[in-house]
């Protein structure tokens, strides 16, 4: 309880501790704290930026997806249209080809028939001629009765 030299000694001690704190404790810690504060602020800003970027990218992706879908639909429609046209064309071709073939076949048949008729007519003429020869008992002069024979043959 007595005031003595402790008073002075305590002043010195106090001053030394304050000096130590002022020099070696306060600055590094507050510096680290403010640095961390800055880092956190930066981190938060970066996160916000990233979030915005992500949003942007997402909307862009959706847009692109929608566009792609539309384009794909267009392609599909086009392809379908083309397929239809191709089928139509093929059908037309086939029909035409068929008709052509039919026509050709018909022409051939006609030709064949005519040829057969001709042959038949000649044979019949021969036959009629030989029959008539037999009936008349003489040969028929071909050059004399040629016109008649031809007429006959044409009638057959």
């Amino acid at each position: 309880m007595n005031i003595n030299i402790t008073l002075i000694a305590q002043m010195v001690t106090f001053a030394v501790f304050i000096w130590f704190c002022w020099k070696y404790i306060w600055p590094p810690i507050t510096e680290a704290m403010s640095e961390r504060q800055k880092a956190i602020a930066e981190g938060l800003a970066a996160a916000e930026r990233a979030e915005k970027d992500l949003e942007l990218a997402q909307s862009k992706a959706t847009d692109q997806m929608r566009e792609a879908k539309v384009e794909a639909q267009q392609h599909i429609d086009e392809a379908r249209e083309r397929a239809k046209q191709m089928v139509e064309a093929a059908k037309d071709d086939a029909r035409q080809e068929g008709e052509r073939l039919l026509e050709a076949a018909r022409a051939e048949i006609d030709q064949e028939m005519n040829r057969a008729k001709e042959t038949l007519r000649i044979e019949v003429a021969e036959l009629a001629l030989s029959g008539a020869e037999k009936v008349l008992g003489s040969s028929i002069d071909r050059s004399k009765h040629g016109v008649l024979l031809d007429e006959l043959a044409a009638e057959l």
Partner: protein
Amino acid sequence: MAGQELTSGEYIKHHLTNLTYGQLPDGSWGLAHSAEEAKEMGFWAINVDSMGWSIGLGLVFCFFFGKAAKHATAGVPGGLQNFVEMIIDFIDDTVSNIFNHTNSLIAPMALTIFVWVFMMNLMDLIPIDVIPEFAKLLGVHYMKVVPSTDPNVTMGMALCVFGLILFYSIKCKGVGGFFAELAFHPFPKFLMPFNLFLETVNLIAKPISLGLRLFGNMYAGEMIFILLAIMYGGIVTGIVGGVLQWGWAMFHLIIVTLQAFIFAVLTVVYLAQAHDVEEEH
């Protein structure tokens, strides 16, 4: 309790005596053997226990906070750094609310005061007989473990603060400005002597109230612990005393923290006033 051979009065007196080193009546230097002897040593004596405990606690502060400062990282802080940063943040907040000038010394000083005074006050919560009895086993007869119950300690700090108040007053206002602040307030200039008297008393009251407030609070708290410790005579009074002591310790914990905080804050307030260059009224 210190022993049956002591009366209550002696017990109290024993607890309130510092371990004092100084010149003994026979002319040689050594530790005082009684309160009277310590008193007779006069000014040229030193309270070894107060100095030892306060320096020890200051070193604890420097060690832990210095360790945190040395390994301070802006990355993920460890437990110690977290704890230290919490206190520093608290002090920094408090100081920046009170002190609007730029002075890098103020906040570290407030931190030192707060933590150091808090630790010195906290010594009060160690059961009062433990360390003195232990010291007795080592042959040391007086041991006051709470440095802040020694007016030398609290007044020493207060005088340091007073020195800083004077230093910054003169630095910021100049000798003339400082004198004007003392002489021309609160009354008109023709009442200068009266103003000077009033303001000087006001100025001197600052360190005295600062030092004595802490001392008074801690001394009173210590006193109550001592008085409660005397109750450990019988079983009934012992139990009552124990309960009371526990209650008082809980309450004292608030005082311990509050007084440390008040000392730090008032120091900052006084220094802020010293920095304020007053405009003409």
